């Protein structure tokens, strides 16, 4: 008996291989059976290798997507903290030298959190992001120094404090721009990873498909040549190949699908809400600066309008597409009405009332029909927007992180199962053709 392995072609030169192939083509049935068994077994082994490789690549890609998603949320968190701190600093300047201790504590807490957030973000950064984040860390330190200078000068009644405050804001804007670049690059990385996860399954599909094809063609050949309806081992191998092609590929596909859904669902919603929050706090800082500029804040008012259009667009998309953050829309809308009233008061020459409305939420001396009667309290309304958007953001980012972590869970087991299935199919194929071979002994 010629060992099966040799029928598959031992490495004895191209000429030998060609002679053997010619022998199989012209050969007798046992030779053909041995060759068929060898080819089918090889397809089984290939399924093991291809399947293992495909599932592994998909697992790695989904894990990359999860890590990038986590990074995106962290970067956005830092951006919101910086904008919040700047909004507090601008507002404090408006209130004069007597800064309320709780405001100071709020500011300190934000700056400290932003600094430690930057360290965390930098630890998991890659590529260009590392340089940008290093620059951002330097800018944050510079920002804090300028705000301290502004504060120290204000306390002594020195108007140069205003110049320091202006400069601090410019540094904050540069810092935020750097963070936005990192955010966009991280977004791209999430999308690339998901795309890689999607494209990773072809070796599994291909090898399972080829194995199934080999088994089906072989079975049909056996049935036609030997007039046996079913070769049981070969049929079992076929069932395994079919199961891998349906269930295995299904499980594998579902992992990528879940990951993709988490990204284009919860993570996209969280991304939109985080953008709305950053733009909202930016608008609030601009509002304070229009008042610092006292009747001449047209540039800051343009900034307010731009930021508010981002809030509106981001929240609208989050609410209509993902049913997220809808209650923050009303809150911001009410705040925007209050802001319009603040602008009316300032433009109408009542700067004191405008400042009071912006910093305390009510304005004494303005008649009840104008302010209190309208029920507008921009401070409370803005805080509502901040709280509601914060809740929605936490829920969605948590959901996205959980789904992404869960998505890879079944892949470890699947990897083992596919390897075993491929080897089992190879063994069964050999056994199936062996039954026919025995008839020639």
């Amino acid at each position, binding site marked *: 008996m010629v060992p099966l392995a040799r029928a598959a072609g031992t490495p004895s030169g191209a000429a030998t291989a060609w002679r053997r192939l010619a022998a199989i083509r012209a050969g007798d049935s046992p030779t053909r059976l041995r060759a068929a068994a060898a080819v089918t077994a090889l397809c089984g082994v290939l399924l093991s290798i291809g399947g293992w490789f495909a599932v592994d690549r998909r697992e790695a890609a989904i894990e990359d997507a999860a890590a990038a998603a986590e990074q995106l949320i962290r970067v956005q968190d830092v951006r919101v903290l910086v904008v919040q701190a700047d909004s507090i600093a601008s507002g404090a300047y408006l209130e004069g030298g007597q800064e309320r201790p709780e405001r100071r504590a709020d500011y300190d807490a934000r700056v400290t959190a932003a600094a430690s957030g930057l360290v965390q973000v930098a630890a998991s950064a890659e590529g260009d992001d590392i340089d940008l984040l290093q620059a951002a860390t330097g800018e944050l330190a510079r920002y804090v120094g300028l705000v301290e200078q502004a504060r120290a000068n204000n306390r002594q009644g020195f108007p140069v404090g205003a110049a320091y405050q202006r400069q601090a804001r410019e540094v904050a804007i540069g810092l935020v721009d750097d963070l936005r670049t990192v955010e966009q690059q991280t977004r791209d990385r999430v999308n690339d990873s998901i795309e890689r996860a999607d494209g990773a399954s072809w070796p599994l*599909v291909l090898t399972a498909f080829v194995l199934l094809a080999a088994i089906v063609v072989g079975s049909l050949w056996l049935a036609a040549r030997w007039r046996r309806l079913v070769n049981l081992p070969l049929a079992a191998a076929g069932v395994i190949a079919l199961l891998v092609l349906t269930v295995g590929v299904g499980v594998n596909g579902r992992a990528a699908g879940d990951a993709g859904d988490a990204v284009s669902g919860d993570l996209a919603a969280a991304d939109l809400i985080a953008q709305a929050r950053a733009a909202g706090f930016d608008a609030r800082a601009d509002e304070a600066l229009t008042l610092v500029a006292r*009747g001449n804040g047209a540039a800051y008012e343009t900034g307010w309008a731009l930021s508010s259009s981002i809030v509106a667009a981001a929240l609208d*998309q989050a609410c209509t597409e993902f049913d997220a953050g809808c209650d923050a829309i009303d809150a911001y809308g009410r705040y925007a009405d209050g802001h319009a009233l603040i602008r009316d008061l300032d433009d109408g020459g009542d700067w004191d009332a405008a400042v009071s409305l912006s910093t305390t939420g009510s304005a004494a001396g303005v008649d009840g029909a104008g302010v209190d009667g309208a029920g507008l309290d921009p401070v409370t309304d803005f805080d509502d927007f901040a709280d509601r958007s914060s809740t929605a953001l936490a829920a969605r980012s948590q959901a996205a992180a959980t789904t992404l972590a869960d998505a890879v869970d079944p892949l470890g087991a699947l990897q083992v199962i596919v390897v075993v299935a491929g080897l089992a199919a190879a063994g069964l194929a050999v056994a199936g053709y062996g039954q026919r071979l025995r008839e020639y002994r």
Partner: protein
Amino acid sequence: MTHRVVWTGLVAAGLVISACAGAAGLPSEITGSVTVESSPPTTAAPACTADQAAADPVRSYPPLDSLPSPGAMPAGSTMAAIAERGRLVVGVSADTLLFGARNPLTGEIEGFDIDVLGEVARAIFGDDGAERIEYRVITYAQRLPSLEARDVDIVAHTMTINCARWLRIAFSSEYFDAGQKILVGTGSGYSGVDDLVAAGARVCAPEGSTNIEEITKPQYVDPGDGRPGVEVIGKPDISDCLVAMQQGEADATTGDDTVLAGFAAQDPNTEVVGEAFTREPYGLGMNSADVDFVRFVNAVLEDVRSSGRWAEIYQRWLIDTGALVAAAPPDPPPADHGRELP
């Protein structure tokens, strides 16, 4: 035949399975949009003709023969329109200590310029005039454009009267006589502008000011006698120049002695040195078409000078604060009312 059916089925299955995957991913960052009103085209600064330049720029229109009583402005006049509106809209600085600065403790804008505006407002509205002032905080560079665009009725912003500005706006008579000096770090060894030219020092000045026009003249930046000349750093506002000095970005600031005195008061590590190398007569700016308002304001200023109010304001802001060492206020600068009415 059977083979083909099986084959087709498998291909179809493979296609279906591979087509199952595919996700939209994260959308790009949201960018907002806002319609910005187009700003008026900036025209090149008109140049004075030789005749115009020869005429004394501090010459303003003759004051009204008699001031109308507060609350009774002549019908159809610029003042009547302001009175009807109930507010005098003024363009001021909020960070020029002693002249126009926001007091961070009270939030009020105060200074020499603000007190002068108070007199104008009282002449229009009566005793509560100062409360009828609506302040617009503007930068040096915004002084002329805000008057041309009628965003403000009047500007009091340590503004030097000169020929080029007369081509765009109108000035009151001179209400303060200042001069351009330099502010340096104490112990820097610079004792005048010549030292800065010799050392090639970095000198900061506010953009759109007469100070920067002066310091960028060849005699300072490129003297051509082997001295390196100063390096000029322009900033939007003169207070940014103090910041630049404190941050080591500039060695000196050039500006009006009055403004620099305010800086020296804010930063004990700086001092005003040397003689004034220009004369900077301050005037209140108004729209060039509001000749009646200029004449009204000149009449108010005549009152302020002769009643002793000018000396009071000077005493309050420049002597009591210790900014200038003087036993008593000097005489107010004389008014020249010889400009021909258009």
